[in-house]
């Protein structure tokens, strides 16, 4: 799962809150898994696929370039 925009990646909806997902979390296509802040706008990032979070590649509040891999999600085999 890649960053749709360049920006600062946040794993939680606000400082101190629980992260949207952890490694092992089950996600659906529309599950919000993070936020990318670009030009002071908060953009929700959706999983885009159904499956299980395998790896979180960018740390909280770290900058991610456009297209950078944010997470790896193992697709569910229906």
């Amino acid at each position, binding site marked *: 799962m890649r960053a749709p*925009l*360049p920006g600062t990646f946040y794993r939680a909806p*606000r*400082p101190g809150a629980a992260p949207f997902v952890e490694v092992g979390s089950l996600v659906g296509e529309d599950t919000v898994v993070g936020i990318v802040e670009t*030009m002071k*706008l908060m*953009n929700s990032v959706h999983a885009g696929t159904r499956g299980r979070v395998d790896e979180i590649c960018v740390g909280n509040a770290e*900058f991610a370039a456009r297209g950078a891999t944010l997470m790896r999600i193992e697709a569910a085999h229906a």
Partner: protein
Amino acid sequence: MRDRRAPGRPRVIRRVLIANRGEIAVRVIRTCERLGIETVLAASEADRRSLPARLADKTIVIGPASAAASYLSTDAVVGAALAARADAVHPGYGFLSENPALARACEAAGVVFVGPGAQTLEAAGDKLAAREHAIAAGLPVLPGGLVGGKARSPAAGAGSANVACGTAEALAASIGFPVLVKAAGGGGGRGLRVVRDPAALAGAIAVASAEADAAFGDPRVYLERYVARARHVEVQLLGDGGTVIHLGDRDCSVQRRYQKLIEEAPAPLLGGALREAMHDAALALGTRLGYRGLGTVEFLVDAGAGAFYFLEVNARIQVEHPVTEAVTGLDLVAEQIAVAEGRPVRLRQGEISLTGHAIECRVNAEDPADGFLPSPGTVTTAVFPASARADTHIQDGEQVPPHYDSLLAKVIARGPDRASALNTLRRALETTEIGGVRTNLRLHRELLASQEFAAGAVDTGFLARWLEETPPSVQKNEKAATGG
């Protein structure tokens, strides 16, 4: 609470540290050059080769791209001011411009802060305190009150507009739905939420309070009556800590999600008595605060009812200040620096004359055809009109970093009346061209062509309605027209 500099001779500012970026940094440099003041730009890593960095006499990199570690770091800014041996810090708008801690740190370091004193910044920054000062100064406010607490204020109980608090439900019921939930520490449209249904009130308050706590370190929220069709009109003030004058009004009703897009001066189609009452109200509040510096008092205007209500005070120079400059002939940055030096306001109220009309469009790096998605990148083309003023930091090859807001340029046209200012602005935007990043230029052209805007006096819901009614094809064309 007078906000005077230590008595004595004015402190002449010979070198100023500009703790900001983008178009406002260029704007401040321009005036400093004219006044013979040396400029040192405090820039982040991302902005070290920006236009203001090239224009300033010197640039000090104060931290990484992330604003939290650079433009929002009081230590980095004051450290740079001391290292540069600057006489003053100009904070621009946004970032630390209304931060009492920076004002205090500057004072402690013996550096002039170009803005109001820390006490005034605190009074203006706490929306509840500002509201209570407004009530005490006799300004009309919307019915409202603090959720879950008793008012702690210099003006507690001064006005019937402050509803006695019980439960949030009782408070909202006495105000009447819909109500607006506002964060005391918010401002600039942040931390606002409309509640139409009493059943949704408790949830909205809980979420707003948690968000406000995270964003502003202040969980207090208050309720105010929500006015659906209102105009946003503001009055420009200039004070020296004793004398306060006003420089007329601006209409900033063309907004999207509380972000202003088009501003003009004077506010069109406002009755003379209403306009004068608003000017007097702003002066009364400025006088009560012993205001020093440039500041704006924002009002909601219910034009149908001929009523206006205090919203908030912006204790800094504003993005839209050029429209006021266009109709007053003043250089507001120069006036701001003069009072920061400890000089009295150089103009009497009677010497301020407003001539003609001016309109400004904010050109942003965002794509209206794609949900106003931000569009950082590298600018490949930048052409600005000769027939209008363009305040910008954008040139061919300029970087538009993803770390900061999306403002690229302000295009400001003036004319002897509103119709001619509008015509000049329409022509100016036809010749304005920015490539490499997506912009809202085409949206501006369409808005300026709309009959409703041309008629004047639109309310703050105008843009949202216009976007909804505009055929998708028009918005789709925008993508093709501005893409690249």
